[in-house]
């Protein structure tokens, strides 16, 4: 009895007494790492405006979370990495020339209205970055759609689709849609767009510069088991299938717009997506279906944002429907 707990300070805690390597911060940093190549490439291609957009979004996200915690007298949470991911994702969903104050408002709304008012990380119903993006789109959609771009569309003949001004700053996707509306078919070869969309696309938002880098990052997250493959596979699969069904090019429709950023990085947000395997697959498919329907029949070009937000709202219901069978139970009672 020479060495009792009274003499030596022992930690008394509940089992298990060992813990796995994963923490909230390590997971968030994996997501940041997976997005980093695509983000870096967009800065290389877009230059200073892109850097400003990233800096403003991330900085404002962190600052507004810190400020909220300070005002609400809650423990500081900005080091958990989630505000960093939100800021980064919001920036990647915005065009590079977005006025800095719009980026800032978007990031503040994302954090405060998208997350903190619900009680902080874990309690929000919707993906905070998408809440910020939706707010920006609804408030200043006209501003964003008239931002100058590098002019790929000028080489396309869009006769009959109205003046060039109407679609200035438009993405390949918007042009494809406009042309389809005007001519009842595609005026240009969608397959020829695969290569620029994969490697170097200067229209659209910062997250659309290289689909290849987004796919690579997403695959890393699946490989590291940070995200469940069921969500992106369900999402992309449904999107491709429906695009094909609606008479368009499935590959073009997956590569263009926000589908890949949404499928790998937005819809897979833990807090706002379902938690069990079957529910995740259904949720992923739902995102793809609403995204496709919105793209082909909607009046707004923002089908990705609203498809995911809509499915976010259904996630708790899906969790409730797809409760797994407990080991030892033949089937669930009730």
């Amino acid at each position, binding site marked *: *009895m*020479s*060495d*009792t*707990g*009274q003499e*030596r300070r*022992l*930690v*008394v*805690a*509940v*089992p*298990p*007494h*060992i*813990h*796995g390597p*994963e*923490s*909230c911060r*390590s*997971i968030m940093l994996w997501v940041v790492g997976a997005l980093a190549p695509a983000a870096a490439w967009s800065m290389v291609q877009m230059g200073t405006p892109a850097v400003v957009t990233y800096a403003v979004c991330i900085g404002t996200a962190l600052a507004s979370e810190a400020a909220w915690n300070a005002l609400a007298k809650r*423990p500081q949470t900005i080091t958990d990495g*989630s505000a960093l991911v939100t800021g980064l994702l919001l920036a990647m969903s915005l065009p590079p020339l977005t006025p800095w104050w719009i980026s800032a408002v978007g990031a503040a709304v994302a954090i405060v209205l998208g997350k903190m008012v619900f*009680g*902080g*990380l*874990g*309690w929000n119903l919707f993906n905070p970055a998408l809440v910020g993006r939706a707010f920006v789109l609804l408030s200043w959609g006209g501003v964003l759609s008239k931002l100058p771009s590098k002019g790929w569309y000028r080489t396309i003949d869009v006769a009959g689709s109205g003046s060039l001004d109407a679609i200035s700053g438009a993405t390949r996707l918007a042009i494809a849609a406009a042309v389809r509306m005007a001519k009842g078919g595609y005026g240009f070869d969608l397959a020829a767009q695969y290569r620029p969309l994969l490697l170097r696309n200067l229209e659209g938002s910062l997250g659309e510069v290289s689909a290849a880098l987004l796919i690579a990052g997403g695959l890393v997250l699946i490989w590291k088991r940070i995200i*469940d493959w069921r969500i992106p596979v369900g999402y992309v699969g449904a999107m491709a299938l429906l695009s094909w069904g609606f008479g368009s090019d499935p590959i073009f429709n997956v590569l263009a717009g926000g589908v890949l950023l949404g499928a790998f990085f937005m819809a897979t947000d*833990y*807090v706002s*997506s379902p*938690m*069990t395997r079957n529910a*995740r697959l259904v949720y992923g498919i739902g995102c793809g279906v609403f995204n496709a329907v919105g793209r082909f029949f909607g009046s707004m070009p923002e089908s990705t944002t609203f498809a995911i937000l809509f499915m976010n709202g259904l996630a708790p219901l899906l969790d409730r429907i797809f*409760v*797994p*069978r*407990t*080991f*030892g*139970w*033949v089937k669930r009672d*009730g």
Partner: protein
Amino acid sequence: MPRDAFRGGIHPPDMKHLSAGRPIERAAVPERLVVPAIQHIGACCEPTVDPGQRVKRGQAIALVDAFVSAPVHSPVDGVVEEISEHLTAAGLRVPCVTIIPDAEQDFDRWEPVEGSDLAAIVRAAGVVGLGGATFPSAVKLVPPKEFTVTTVILNGCECEPYLTCDHRLMLEAPDRVVRGGVIIRESLGAERLVIGIESNKKDAAEAVREAAQGTEAEVVVLPTKYPQGAEKQLIWAILRKEVPHGKLPAAAGALVHNVGTAAAIADAVDVRKPLMERVVTVTGRVAKPGNYRVLLGTLVSDLIEMAGGFSGEVERVIAGGPMTGPVLGSLDVPVTKGMSGVVVLGPGDAAKPVDEDQPCIRCGRCSEACPMFLQPFAIGTYANARLWDRTEQFHALDCIECGACAYVCPTSRPLVQLIRIAKAELAAKGVRP
């Protein structure tokens, strides 16, 4: 070829290299033994000796006349010093018999146990489940009335990290393990005897397989995954049968004993030896990690000293494995029948204690890891909200408390503890599985 493991589970670093190579060594006889009168699940025994009385090694010192119970024996020749309440590893104060051992001890001699039949002998020997459950073994030797046990399974998985006592026992006394299995199978009239061993103990599997030659025992090597040694997961891995909710393993035609228990049953039947000592893995931050044959009632503080004392900075001392064992707040507690290890963890080995109530980020890792296919996040959230009915709807009562959910939780939520609270609340309301 290893069979598929169960679905779910985790792969923590097993840390068995610290002590797996150390042969079982007899721990020194301490100055005094504090032997609890209850070391099993079931009715508490009454001490039957008085202070000042001489006791012999193997003599029963605490008894009770109840079906689910196990007597306690003196592990040494000596004199009873006092009978008083003492703290145990479980955190309870229970009646204990303190014995001052004689200077000379003959470990090869004991008071033989008596009994009219096999179950009576095992019961009189005080054998309980040595894997940690401490359920009286004799009860499991009587065939259940409503079910037929077709397969007796010996559990040699030892899936808890750090522990190597079963590993060494299988390696050094495989014949005792097999013999115990044969006795159990015969007494139940079961068809098969299967010994399940995890693939990280190939040498033990080989030794047992050799010892099993000429007997009906089959050795099955299972993939290394925690909690492979959990009863229901082991039965599934071997028989591909699920133990139905709220039923005994016999409902799936199986009966499981730990390999150490089997060896203790063999000793009780063959040489009438009562359970007075057990192999304990003392490992982690001690100078001489190893596997020690320890007299029951040895204080953990004495045992740690025998293992060379602490080495380096110490944070937690665990009775048993680090996934499920209770932590010790005081080292002044005795080794009991169910204590398979004393694991000493320091900063970096042990989980960081979490002060604040951390949020669930809904990542779903707990549900992926749960070998019972539960949704620990949901039970935990409802337990926090004191919605006990909801915890029952999410089958809190099926939780086996393996700790896999809390191990993987990125925000380190105390999920097992929340589920335990829910179970206790449901039990208090009279809800049974």
